[in-house]
């Protein structure tokens, strides 16, 4: 693995060398390293590209890394990763994709991740997307995440895309059984002519299930962002979604939140705000000795923290 790939791994998975626990590293469409553990088994799919990850019931406090890096310009990589999380397990899964495109052709990675989270299991899933490279070829990432939560299970998904991805369509769908909880936190920053579209659909089917979808984004330059969320309460449940965007320069931001209650006991809330950085915020930080540019950077980095 060369230094460019190592840097991408650091950016998307905070990996500095071989991680602890289970891992599967995919580089330019090929397997670059894999390790299963006694409780987490990773196997290649036979019918299509991708892997199956089987986490034994009761597995506690284990982590796994499944990063993807791409450095070949013009590559189009599609991968299916299925996660079977056993009942009562408690695991951390770190995914992410980094593209370095130094060429003229588009490099694209579409990762389709499906989670079956067993009863009472807890999963924290962190997914970072990052692009770099001097070439004028586009860096495209279209992740799709499908989440099935069984009774009383809990999943927290943290999705971050801060830099270098020219085009992305991010689809996330989830369905929740009785007592299940889904927490989604998304952070996006787009620059120049980048385009980012996010679509969340959550079906709260079980009694007393709960979903919380929070998106914070910063749109700069001529970039475009579209946020669609659909929170459907089909039983006695609570749902909350929040979309908060800072718009700068000539950017364009669309937020289309939708709530659908199909049960009288469904309690759903949505909050949405789009606006520029408040002048008073900049002034306050200037009175602490920051320049206007430093103040802006501080406000944005805090907002996306």
């Amino acid at each position, binding site marked *: 693995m060369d230094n460019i790939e190592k840097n991408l791994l650091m950016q998307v998975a905070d990996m500095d060398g071989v991680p602890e626990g289970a891992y599967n590293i995919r580089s330019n469409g090929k397997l670059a390293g894999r390790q299963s553990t006694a409780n987490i088994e990773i196997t290649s799919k036979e019918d299509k590209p991708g892997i199956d990850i089987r986490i034994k019931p009761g597995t506690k406090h284990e982590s796994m890394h499944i990063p993807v890096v791409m450095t070949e310009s013009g590559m189009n990589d599609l991968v299916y990763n299925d996660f079977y999380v056993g009942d009562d397990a408690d695991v951390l899964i770190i995914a992410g994709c980094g593209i370095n495109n130094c060429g003229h052709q588009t490099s694209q990675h579409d990762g389709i991740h499906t989670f079956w989270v067993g009863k009472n299991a807890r999963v924290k899933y962190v997914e970072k997307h990052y692009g770099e490279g001097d070439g004028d070829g586009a860096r495209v990432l279209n992740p799709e995440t499908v989440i099935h939560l069984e009774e009383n299970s809990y999943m927290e998904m943290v999705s971050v895309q801060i830099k270098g991805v020219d085009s992305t369509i991010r689809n996330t769908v989830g369905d929740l059984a009785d007592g299940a909880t889904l927490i989604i936190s998304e952070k996006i920053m787009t620059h120049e002519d980048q385009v980012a579209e996010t679509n969340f659909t959550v079906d709260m089917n079980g009694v007393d299930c709960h979903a919380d979808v929070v998106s914070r984004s910063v749109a700069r330059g001529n970039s475009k962002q579209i946020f669609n969320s659909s929170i459907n309460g089909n039983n006695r449940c609570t749902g909350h979604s929040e979309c908060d965007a800072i718009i700068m320069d000539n950017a364009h931001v669309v937020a289309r939140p939708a709530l659908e209650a199909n049960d009288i006991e469904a309690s759903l809330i949505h909050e949405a705000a789009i606006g520029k950085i408040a002048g008073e915020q900049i*002034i306050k930080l200037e*009175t*602490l*000795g920051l320049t*206007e540019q430093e103040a802006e950077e501080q406000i944005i980095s*805090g907002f*996306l923290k």
Partner: protein
Amino acid sequence: MLELKNISLAVTEDSGQEKELLKDINLSIGDCFTVITGPNGGGKSTLARVIAGIYKPTAGRIFFDGVDITDMSITDRAKMGISFAFQQPVRFKGLTVMDLIKLAAGKDTSLAQACAYLSEVGLCAKDYLNREVNDSLSGGELKRLEIAMNIARGTKLSIFDEPEAGIDLWSFNNLIRVFEQMHEKINGAILIISHQERILSIADRIVVISEGSVSREGSREEILPSLLNTSDRACQTLMKNIV
């Protein structure tokens, strides 16, 4: 330390008419505790903002430690040693109390130091350091954080715009103590805009600003009795009329 020479500020209103918010203000503020008071809308906050560099005067010059700072930015004035606590503190989604204290006091601020600044304004640091400075903080909590940031900066000139607004009685008693201690510690000037008699009563000097001009200026002993008499008389007149 701070000298204002012939400071005026005029703005053009929506109707097209020009309005003078500050009219030919001359003030000299030394290393002491000065309180600016006067009726609402008289120009007190505008003057504080002119000193901090947020508004540019349309005439006159400002000198800080002998240096003409009239054309200097807010940032440069802050770096020279001017702190300004807002009347209405700003909220920041994502930035924590610790982030702001560090920005005020410097990156190397230890946890213990940050805790000490917060304790001075009656905030229990353990509960607050990691809190986001967003809607979850009350107006009073924000106000105290604003004051803590000025304490943390410890600059030669600290300006507070109506620090008592939104502060409850318990905090108010502590606020007075904070100003007294700060005055001893920083060996510089404290400039407070206030209507509060308790704050006026600890001032070295009092400046009364009304209709954009300095209407009176002098030591506490010279100014405070007349202010209190005026308000007493006004109150008695009002009561007579009501009764």
